[in-house]
């Protein structure tokens, strides 16, 4: 007995140490997973929050009538087509009288965004009395200047990595020192659709596209999935055919999303000739992907309703169909809604299948109907990431933040519904 006891005692220290190590490894595993999440979110927020402000440069603008309306016609069409770019360039050059070389003048003029022209036109249209007046205005800076302004450490990079050359750097720093450059909220981000210029690009177009696409997804997938789920769970006989349907559904839930894209391409676009890159096609593809999720959620919710409800209804003479539609289905609605919202939030984040059906085009206007070309938020993020201009990096991160916020919102609503309405039987 004591011999055993000694042996056991001896090995104990090693065993306890290995116990502690094992527990530590487990803890490290969890910590790794959580830190990955934190790192991802932090790096996105750090980059993305820059996109919510834009850089503006203060200039004294002279609305020279010789440029705007040389023949004094006072016609709108003449004014609108005037060369406001020249007016802007002149205003900048006023600050740097020493600049005479034509190439350098052009470089300076690129400090201001091309959208500033439209701003000036709008101003004149509102108040024609401005013609031949001088006014101090804050104009939107171009993306390059915006990037430098937001990442001042870039000024220390060697010239070929810097985005602006030494002369431009000097001019930029002049604006800084004169306090003629500032940050202000980015008005374009939430109101504009995509653009080639980062400072003018916004997510409105993608937002409308996502909304229309999800709308189509919802109205297609929800009724069909609930119908299928109710049928399979409550009304279907248990035979080989229904087993086969079940296997199919479980399998579809695990098929890679890009395959659905190929299906959409081959059938919806090439056979049915539906408009390419339209929310209706995107919605149909996503509906097929979301069907299994909602069917599975429906079945689970139906299963949770106790048999006593069904028995009571049938005992009163209801048919099986009436039992399901009048009693069981309404009671399982909270669970079904939760599953649907979760399915929708998964669909919102999907991008691979939509690339296949053509939603990669560069769309400048927000779509007007479900048959117009559109893009969706995640694809917009992908497109911006693929663009070379440095100014799109922060926009991409900001787009990610918007997408994630919507997902958080939808999932919170789902959790709330589950919490508030789900009955504990």
């Amino acid at each position, binding site marked *: 007995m004591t011999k055993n006891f000694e042996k056991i005692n001896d090995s104990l220290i090693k065993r306890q140490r290995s116990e502690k190590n094992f527990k530590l490894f487990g803890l490290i595993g969890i910590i790794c997973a959580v830190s990955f999440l934190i790192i991802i979110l932090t790096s996105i927020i750090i980059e993305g929050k820059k996109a919510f402000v834009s850089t503006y440069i203060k200039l004294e603008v002279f609305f020279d009538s010789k440029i705007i309306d040389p023949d004094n016609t006072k016609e709108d069409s003449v004014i609108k087509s005037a060369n406001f770019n020249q007016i802007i360039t002149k205003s900048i050059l006023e600050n740097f009288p020493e600049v005479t070389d034509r190439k350098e003048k052009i470089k300076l003029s690129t400090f201001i965004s091309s959208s500033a022209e439209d701003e000036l036109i709008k101003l004149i249209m509102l108040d024609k009395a401005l013609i031949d007046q001088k006014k101090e205005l804050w104009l939107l800076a171009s993306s390059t200047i915006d990037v430098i302004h937001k990442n001042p450490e870039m000024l220390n990079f060697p010239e070929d990595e810097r985005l602006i050359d030494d002369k431009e750097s000097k001019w930029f720093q002049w604006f800084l020192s004169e306090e003629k450059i500032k940050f202000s909220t980015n008005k374009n981000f939430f109101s504009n659709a995509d653009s080639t210029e980062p400072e003018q690009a916004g997510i409105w177009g993608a937002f409308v596209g996502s909304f229309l696409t999800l709308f189509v997804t919802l109205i297609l997938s929800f009724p069909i999935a609930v119908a299928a789920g109710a049928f399979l769970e409550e009304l279907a006989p248990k035979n080989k055919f229904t087993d086969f349907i079940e296997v199919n559904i479980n399998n579809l839930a695990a098929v890679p999303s890009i395959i659905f894209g190929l299906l959409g391409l081959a059938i919806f676009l090439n056979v049915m000739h539906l408009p390419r890159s339209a929310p209706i096609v995107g919605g149909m593809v996503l509906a097929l992907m979301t069907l299994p999720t909602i069917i599975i959620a429906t079945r689970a919710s139906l299963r949770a309703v106790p048999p006593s409800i069904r028995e009571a209804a049938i005992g009163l003479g209801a048919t099986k169909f009436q039992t399901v539609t009048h009693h069981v289905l309404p009671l399982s609605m909270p669970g079904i809604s939760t599953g649907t919202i979760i399915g929708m939030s998964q669909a919102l984040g999907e991008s*691979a299948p939509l*690339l296949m059906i053509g939603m990669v085009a560069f769309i400048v206007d927000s779509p007007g109907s479900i048959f117009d070309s559109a893009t969706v938020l995640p694809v917009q993020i992908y497109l911006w990431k693929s663009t070379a201009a440095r100014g799109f990096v922060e926009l991409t991160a900001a787009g990610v933040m918007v997408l994630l916020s919507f997902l958080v919102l939808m999932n919170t609503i789902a959790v709330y519904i589950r919490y508030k309405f789900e009955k504990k039987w």
Partner: protein
Amino acid sequence: MGFWAFFIIFASSAFFLQWYATNKALRFNASIEEGPKLPSLPQYYGLFTLLWFIIPILSTFLIWTIFKPFLIDYLVIQKIPVNLLNSFGGNPSLILSTIKAINLQNIFPGTKQELIDLAKYMNELKYSTSSLFYIAILSLGLIGSSFTLKKISSRFRARQSVESVNIKLLIFCSTIAILTTIGIVFSLIFEAIRFFEQIPFFDFLFGLSWSPQTAIREDQVASSGAFGAIPIFSGTLLITVIAMSVSIPVGLLSAIYLSEYATNNLRAFLKPILEILAGVPTVVYGFFAAITVGPFLKGLADSFGFSIASESAIAAGGVMGIMIIPFISSLSDDVINSVPNSLRDGSLAMGATKSETIKKVILPAALPGIVGAILLAVSRAIGETMIVVMAAGIAANLTANPFDSVTTVTVQIVTLLVGDQEFDSPKTLAAFALGITLFFVTLVLNLYALKIVKKYREKYD
């Protein structure tokens, strides 16, 4: 008649018919003094009429929408004059695409007059037939409903009919899942066969060189061997292996800690956080991998004197591994939890430490379930698109070095199809060949994994 006019007439007729039929049933009931009344509630007669109005119209509409383009194409082809056909090399589909590309609002100067005429004809066909069609199906619907209205009598059990129609609708909805699978297989196989008509099957499956740049002109043939998929398969394999080597340790250890060591409160707090990792869209992971991880690793390597690709397999694979962690941890957690407590008790009562119990009793017992979870995760990794599209390379590279840039099956599918391609070229068809390979591999993995998990659950439930 435009679509919206049709829709308004359709919707209002539907409402009206249902109301009318219900009313008729009510009046019928009221008119009977003695004898049997209607066997079903009046609303069922209304519903019956409604169904037999809507269903014929909608089904015909659907069929028409699918077949109309073919019909129009056929009619236009009949009208093409022979000399025009010959000038296009005898290929009617080429003429058709040219005609379809003509914008009648803004005709490109120099277009042949004959083509313009054909385009106008096609347009006419499209819009005039619509009108006729809408009128036709509305009449069809009205005829159908007039029959149903006649049927309202005390011998007609409307409720049973309505329910049986409803159940058939439900069955149809359920079979959509099968239809989808069939659709996927059919469309993929169809296009893949067209691909394999041009590129031999074994060249594709076992070829070592992938460069799908075919010539622009149709009569130049792609040099053989340019569609060898082995480098792509190896790229997918490499990235999957890297992803698994991140996700399996982290996922499994997390699952063990959560199910065996964490208190209930801690578990309730941490489990949802892991689920968040699963809810992040893959495009976000792709962005993170491309913008943060790739350059970071490259900078790290540079500071040590190595040079690695900025689109290295390890960047894409590592981030994909992070995305897969919740798959493994969640499923493993369920599996570990379902091992009966009696086994734990038996081991602890013998004087085993918790880690010994886990390592020697619980994990071996849970192993089939965990293997199933890993297989499902592998299937997910193989089919993942956005992360690799954004963070991995495009050039096919047969290598085992994780610091090189490789490409995967999904990246190639995207690259081949995104952009303006002539749909029939081997380049775009190759995407379908890859697609069907991907589908079958993931299908086999999924079926096998689900079978293992099911068998395991049966053992312990």
